[in-house]
């Protein structure tokens, strides 16, 4: 995996970042580099700072100390080429908005404050919904969608602006197994075009899709492989359960390459 980095361009890096809220440090001395075509599985216990780290990477939380450096992440319109799929719980399911409008809103950053959506925008949003396999849901209100359908809509919003880096915050909660499998296949395909950071609890399932693993528990340990053992996790001070799917954890993780 290391060899990959030599050919790829760096997208962003964190340099000894301390971050948190109200003076309380959640993340300390975090270093991370993200390159084109990376596929990083980000794991760690609840409250370990995964979401905080994401906020720093997304540029919405200023670090107390250290630096976040973007490398040519802005496009010609000065829009950050990052796609973001927030946690499911962050969305108000009663909000009166249609699936198509949500997907289309991914283009919003490319427009001025007052610009309306153009005919092409609508066309692009329709194509995106087709790609996600949810064309028939265009006019549905988000509240009427199932968990899996909703995640497809949000994935559509995240990638419609052709990002260089796609960040997904626990996309596998509240979705059925079938969608989860499809999601990972989508991500594998998208990884040809963009780097991906996938935050998850379930390292067992994703390990065959991700290329590297970042363990986040106050500090960040970068593991240059998608194979990780319970012993290594302990060494990284990352007390998470390896969830086995009908097999012993180590075996599950090592079976894939």
């Amino acid at each position: 995996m290391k060899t990959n980095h030599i050919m790829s361009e760096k997208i962003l890096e964190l340099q000894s970042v301390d971050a948190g809220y109200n003076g309380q440090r959640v993340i300390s001395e975090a270093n991370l580099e993200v390159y084109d075509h990376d596929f990083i599985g980000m794991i760690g216990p609840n409250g370990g700072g995964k979401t905080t780290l994401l906020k720093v990477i997304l540029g919405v939380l200023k670090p107390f100390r250290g630096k976040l450096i973007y490398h040519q992440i802005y496009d010609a319109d000065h829009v950050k080429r990052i796609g973001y799929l927030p946690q499911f719980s962050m969305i108000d399911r009663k909000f009166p908005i249609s699936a198509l409008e949500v997907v289309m809103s991914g283009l919003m950053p490319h427009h001025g404050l007052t610009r309306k959506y153009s005919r092409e925008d609508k066309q692009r949003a329709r194509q995106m919904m087709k790609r996600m396999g949810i064309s028939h849901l265009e006019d549905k209100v988000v509240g009427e969608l199932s968990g899996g359908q909703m995640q497809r809509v949000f994935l559509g919003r995240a990638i419609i602006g052709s990002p260089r880096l796609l960040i997904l915050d626990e996309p596998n909660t509240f979705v059925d197994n079938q969608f989860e499998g499809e999601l990972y296949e989508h991500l594998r395909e998208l990884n040809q075009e963009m780097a991906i950071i996938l935050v998850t609890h379930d390292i067992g399932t994703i390990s065959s899709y991700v290329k590297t693993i970042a363990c986040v528990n106050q500090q960040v340990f970068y593991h240059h492989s998608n194979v990780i053992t319970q012993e290594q996790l302990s060494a990284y001070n990352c007390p998470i359960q390896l969830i086995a799917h009908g097999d012993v954890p180590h075996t599950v993780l090592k079976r894939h390459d």
Partner: protein
Amino acid sequence: MEIFQYQFFINALWAALFTSITCGIIGTYIVSNRIVFLSGGITHSSFGGIGVGYYMGVNPIWGAAVFSVLSALGIEFFSKKGQLRHDSVIGIWWSFGMAIGIIFIYLTPGYAPNLMTYLFGSILTVSQGDLLFMGLLTGVIVVFFLLFFRMILFISFDESYARVFGMPVTLIKSLLISLVALTIVVNIKVVGIILLISLLTVPQSIANQFTQVFSRMMFYSVGISLLGVVAGLLFSYNQDVPSGASIIFALIVLFGLTKAGFYLRDKLHPHR
């Protein structure tokens, strides 16, 4: 009908139109963003401005305008900076504004005329000056929503997403909450402080049964509140009961009827 010959009734109809447009649009924003309680707090704290207005001998509505905009921005500011629970801050401002109002009205020598108007509203006493004020705000709100509609929808639905892309979330939200405050102020004359929250929630809840699209919800709400206000006005005229209360009563009846209608439809055609 004879009542159409009276200027006060014509004024009341104009007021009904402006009320419906301002409350229909702003109320949809309020309901969709779940800031009904915040809006109630702003409404009641504006009473402080009315009291101060009486005391200083200026038009109480100007006092209410200053108080409601300050409390709208103040609630946001204090809950963020003071690390207090948002709804607790609302409760504090709500009662503080009312207390200030009562104190200043008692300090004002003599009888406070029209006090009841501010509490319970009186659409039939709306003046030409009030109408000018209402018309102006209606224009501002319509233009603001026409210009920034996509942005408002985008920020309302997923604020944190908008922040990732450096959208001016705080600015837009501050402008919107100020418009909420001003909408409240110009409509105090129509239904009064105590009943105002219903104009910002009932038509929208009725509309929400017919549509779940933000833009349509705004249009439907305007139409529904116009229907409710005019019906309430006529009922008030016929039965000689206070207009504010009859407007709210008409709206709630409409809500009950539509709710029952949809319930029956779902019962009879469960697969629709």
